């Protein structure tokens, strides 16, 4: 067999193999540069936060927030002041007002039984968000192609928003995922 025929055979074999892969489901057309964000894959944006345990986030109507794992039960759309105070006291992290973006704050706000000091007063001025243990959060998913945050109003979005706030307040803190968020905030450079 001549060497040109030899290489022709090899060439055919390569093509046949590619077709076999195609028949097995390999795409025959590949679209390039079509990352999820429509932009390039930036490694700093790919980091993932794994929550170390279940996390609850309490947000008041000024956008202040408390993060902990305390229990809180709603009764008739309201929380007991005693429970609220207990949650706040045991929170691992707290954030000043305006920390939680507006869509996370309670829609309407009213209190009752105020002032009688029996600890039974209740309030609807809070919203509680829960995140599961080991939940994965990819903050980069919330950065759009223009480099803007694009948050929803779910608990994970809130976690991302507070992470950014935490990076602002204290970039060296023990907030779960702080290094991920800082790397995103710093990406490039």
């Amino acid at each position: 067999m001549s060497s040109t025929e030899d290489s022709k055979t090899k060439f055919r074999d390569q093509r046949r193999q590619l077709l076999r892969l195609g028949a097995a489901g390999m795409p025959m057309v590949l679209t390039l540069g079509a990352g999820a964000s429509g932009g390039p894959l930036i490694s700093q944006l790919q980091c993932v936060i794994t929550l170390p345990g279940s996390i609850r986030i309490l947000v008041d109507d000024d956008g202040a927030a408390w993060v902990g794992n305390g229990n809180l039960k709603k009764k008739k759309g309201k929380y007991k002041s005693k429970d609220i105070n207990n949650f706040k006291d045991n929170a691992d992290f707290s954030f000043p007002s305006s920390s939680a973006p507006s869509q996370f704050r309670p829609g309407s706000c009213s209190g009752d039984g105020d002032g009688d000091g029996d600890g039974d007063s209740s309030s609807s001025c809070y919203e509680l968000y829960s995140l599961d243990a080991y939940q994965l959060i990819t903050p980069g998913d919330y950065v759009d192609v223009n480099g803007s945050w694009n948050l929803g109003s779910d608990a994970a979005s809130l976690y991302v928003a507070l992470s950014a706030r935490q990076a602002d307040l204290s970039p060296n803190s023990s907030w779960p995922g702080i290094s991920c968020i800082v790397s995103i905030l710093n990406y490039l450079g």
Partner: protein
Amino acid sequence: MAVGPYTSQTIWIAEADDFVIRQFEDVYFVFCKSAGTTHLLNFLTASIVKNAVDKPGNMKDLYDRVLNDLELDAEDCPSELFESSVVQLDEVGLLKPKEYSNA
């Protein structure tokens, strides 16, 4: 997943004016001007597009011509693979059904 309905009688066309094609080794990079997207084709999908540019045809017609051009037989390239390749090209907008393009 098909972009939309088609039948065995659907005539598939490709609009050459809409592409910029550059070949490197056995790989074809195709830029689609109207969509602003870049695609990577192999010898099979590139041949499908080329045949649909030269002479639009239905699935069977294109299949026969492509096999002939590439010196392949139905064992090398089963019709299911061919059809799924056409659908993939439709998905990214490099092929389209003729009756649709006339609408």
